[in-house]
């Protein structure tokens, strides 16, 4: 295969910016696409070329395979990177790209579809000898069969939608008496969410951790893994904070999970970058759950500890080149942690907060990486996923990485829209998190306990300063209103402030 010269980035937001940066680093041209909501977005401005797809709704723009192929042809692109989300795991899209004579930067469409089919993926894992969660690999149709299987597995069990994801159509059943009603409600929910009511049964893993292995495979049969990512911090089955390495994995366990992941990749004929996800139970036994046949949001933590640029590696492999690393070349240095910053208000049920970024101060200094699509003056649109930035901190050890993240979160100022930064500030001070003592239920429990509520961990000094600042702010607002100072309140306040450069304590 020939060297890739021009890549159409079939995505938007921070991941499009991430891929465009890799293109620039490699001297490859990047072609951006945009909806009408994204004309001023950073990915349009940082790309070499940019083409409009259509109106703002994703169905009329970022999900339109026909328009993407038209743009690929018009722009002279020779490859397509799908990012994550949108069409990243859509076999039809990958196939259409390949049929148009272009390189699809990802696994083959067939492998992608196998990975996307829970049953098929499970069969591959079993064939590869990887441990899977005990349970039926087939959908169950009736309550009697379900009862029988559940009794064999032993309660608690999980009901899961065959077509599912994101927690929809998922039920944990603790009591045999509930199996029939749970099956009915899970199937009904799955049907309305995915148009496919089929459900299967697995043994419930108690208090599991979510640990995944990053793999990288070329088209010549070379496969390596890049260690694990600990992704147990989830809110409603969505990852929120990820880190590498996991605070609890031994070298031996990492090795065994890596070997299992690569065996699955071999069995599947996997190429390019991918992730094999596992649950880890309290005894540190691990169970395969699924393969993500694409780049993942949390890829940056792996990049920080391995020094390997995963997007550059994806492009390299897609060109047909052999991997330049053997397994023994992959060395983990230090620890990295990522916070997914969303335009959501954690104090208000995580409701999305699109809008204008009126002020922005980005953290910097040692160990900090900000993968964002923000700039001052950017308007976060209402149409898409509200993730606006991935903040990553690296340190020579986990404790330093956490300290640096704490510092960076404090430096980060996004004015004009609410973000989930306060959530991370809370998490990063939680003793259980600091100790690495958590599982996939940890965060939902923390939030239920009012972790972000007004009564959490009151601090007299902070309260005093907050009250003084609120009084000052209110005084200045009322004063400027009274004076009707020309030129806006802010500049008048600034002038007022300049008069008080000496701190005095008057009687």
């Amino acid at each position, binding site marked *: 295969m020939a060297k890739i010269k021009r890549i159409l980035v079939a995505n938007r937001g921070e991941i499009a910016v991430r891929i465009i940066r890799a293109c620039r680093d490699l001297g490859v041209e990047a072609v951006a696409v945009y909806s009408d909501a994204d004309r001023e977005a950073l990915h349009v401005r940082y790309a070499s070329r940019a083409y409009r797809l259509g109106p703002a709704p994703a169905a009329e723009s970022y999900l339109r395979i026909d328009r993407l192929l038209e743009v690929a042809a018009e722009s002279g692109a020779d490859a397509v990177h799908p990012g994550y989300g949108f069409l990243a795991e859509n076999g039809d899209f990958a196939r259409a790209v390949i049929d148009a004579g272009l390189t699809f930067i990802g696994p083959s469409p067939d492998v992608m579809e196998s990975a996307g089919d829970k049953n098929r993926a499970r069969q591959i894992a079993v064939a590869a000898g990887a441990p899977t969660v005990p349970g039926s690999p087939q959908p169950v149709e009736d309550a009697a069969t379900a009862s029988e299987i559940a009794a064999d597995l032993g309660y608690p069990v999980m009901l899961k939608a065959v077509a599912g994801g994101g927690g929809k159509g998922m039920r944990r059943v603790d009591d045999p008496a509930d199996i029939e009603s749970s099956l009915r409600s899970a199937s009904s929910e799955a049907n309305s969410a995915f148009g496919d009511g089929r459900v299967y049964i697995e043994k419930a893993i108690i208090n599991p951790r979510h640990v995944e292995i990053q793999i990288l495979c070329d088209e010549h049969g070379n496969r390596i893994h890049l260690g694990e990512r600990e992704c147990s911090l989830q809110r409603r089955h969505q990852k929120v904070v990820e880190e590498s390495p996991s605070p609890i994995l031994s070298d031996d366990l990492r090795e065994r999970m890596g070997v299992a992941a690569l065996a699955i990749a071999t069995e599947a004929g996997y190429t390019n970058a991918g992730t094999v996800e596992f649950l880890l139970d309290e005894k540190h036994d691990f169970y395969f759950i699924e393969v993500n046949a694409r780049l993942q949001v949390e890829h940056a933590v792996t990049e920080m500890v391995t020094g390997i640029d995963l997007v550059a590696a994806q492009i390299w492999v897609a060109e047909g080149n052999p991997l330049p690393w053997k397994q023994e070349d992959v060395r983990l240095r230090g620890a990295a942690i990522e916070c997914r910053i969303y335009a959501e208000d954690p*104090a208000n*049920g*995580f*409701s*999305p*907060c*699109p809008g204008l970024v*009126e*002020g922005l101060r980005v953290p910097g200094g040692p160990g900090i990486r900000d993968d964002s699509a923000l700039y001052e003056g950017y308007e976060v649109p*209402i*149409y*898409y*996923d*509200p993730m606006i930035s991935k903040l990553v901190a690296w340190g020579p050890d986990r404790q330093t990485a956490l300290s640096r993240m704490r510092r960076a*979160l*404090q430096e980060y*100022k996004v*004015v004009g829209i*609410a973000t989930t930064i*306060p959530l991370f*500030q809370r998490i990063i*001070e939680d003793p259980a998190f600091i100790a690495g003592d958590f599982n996939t239920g940890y965060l939902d429990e923390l939030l239920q306990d009012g972790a*972000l*509520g*007004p*009564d959490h961990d*009151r*601090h007299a000094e*902070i*309260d005093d*300063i*907050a*009250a*003084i*600042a*609120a*009084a*000052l*702010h*209110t*005084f*200045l*607002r*009322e*004063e400027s209103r009274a004076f009707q100072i020309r030129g806006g309140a*802010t500049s008048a*306040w*600034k002038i*007022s*402030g*300049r*008069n*008080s*450069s*000496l*701190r*005095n*304590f*008057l*009687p």
Partner: protein
Amino acid sequence: MIIEVLLDGDESPRRYRVARNNGDVCLRRLGDKGNGANDGELVCLDWRTPEPRVYSLLVGGKSYDVHIDENANDEEALELHLMSRVIRARASDARKRRVVKEDGGPDGPVQITAPMPGRVVKVLAAEGTAVTRGDGIIVLEAMKMENELKAPRDGIVASVLVEEGQGVEGGALLATIE
């Protein structure tokens, strides 16, 4: 000017007398009864606004960077970010606040509005329902997520102006609580 500040989670507001003093802004915390007894030390603040909505305060040698957001619909509702904490507060000119109260201000009817364009997925509390602060009133789907709009205070749902399945604009009035 007397400023009252009620921190979220506190029972009663803190009261400050704030005034200009030769160009400086100085403040003194007042006793709860406002009769001058139990008054705090007079503090002349060393403050700047280096960035919009950000105050740099030096108090007793300590440096604080405080970012204050006003609620777009209610300037007295503040969200203060400092020292990796978020503190919500209500702050108002005490005299002004009394006037507002007589007009039926904060204790009067409360409107539930759509924070952004979306679709009403569910109405959780019909007209006439008694609700307590934090109860869900309406579920709105926007940005691919469901958002539960909650009662900001105790009361009775006086009106629900939307139906399930209905699309609404950002800012649209959805329900009122009295």
